[in-house]
């Protein structure tokens, strides 16, 4: 199955792309998306603990099971606002 992955902030710079399509085994969890990136991009390994994930624009735990066509967001700690 395929999912769409959106990368933000530092993650986008490390991967060099904002968006990717990823082929996964059916029944894969969010954790396997993180593992995929940590393996492919060593620079990302130190960040995985602080990164939050979303599925279809809602925050989700790493144990959440993905479905065909899901939109996955990999979100570094946020820094909006000011002061």
């Amino acid at each position, binding site marked *: 199955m395929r999912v769409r992955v*959106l990368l*933000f*902030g*530092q993650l986008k*710079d490390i991967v060099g792309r*904002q*968006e990717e399509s990823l082929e996964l085994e059916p029944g894969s969890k969010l954790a396997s998306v993180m593992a995929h990136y940590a393996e492919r991009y060593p620079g990302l390994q130190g960040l*995985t*603990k*602080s*990164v*939050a*994930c*979303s599925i279809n*624009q*809602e*925050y*989700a*735990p*790493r144990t959440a099971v993905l479905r065909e066509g899901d939109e996955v*967001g990999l*979100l*570094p*700690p*946020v*820094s*909006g*606002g*000011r*002061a």
Partner: protein
Amino acid sequence: MTASKSEAKELRSEHCAIVREPIDLRDIKEDLEHPEDGAAILFEGVVRNNTRGRRTLYLDYEAYESMALNEMEKLAQAALERFKVRDVSLVHRLGRLQIGETSVVIGVGSPHRAAAFEACRWLIDSLKKTVPIWKKEYFEDGAVWADGEAFPDDHPSKPEPASPGTQ
């Protein structure tokens, strides 16, 4: 930085907006005005000229825009339930911002000031923890993504705690 293709000029929900142009404070205040209110608060987050003493040139804000608007609206609804305030308004600006420009505005209208201050404080603190917006700071000698605050412990996306002994 390449901007996302589907970048909307402006996104709006019932109480919130994500904009790319300078934020108009008067508009927000006028929208909040109500004869039953005794308090109207506008908090402005402003781009500072330094980070820990290092001179900042300008900032770029980016967001997971549709999700950011949803998360802002959730905070707005939560504030209306949690505090005795009549109305709230959250506006965040994206793109390149210069020193002194306003990046975020929280507006609260309420019959009494205590609840308005509390709601306003809670909204800006919560926004900075959970709304997916990031800023890149540009200095004379380079640029870095600002350190965000760690996601709260009760956050739904919080990774499993590391097992003892691992780091």
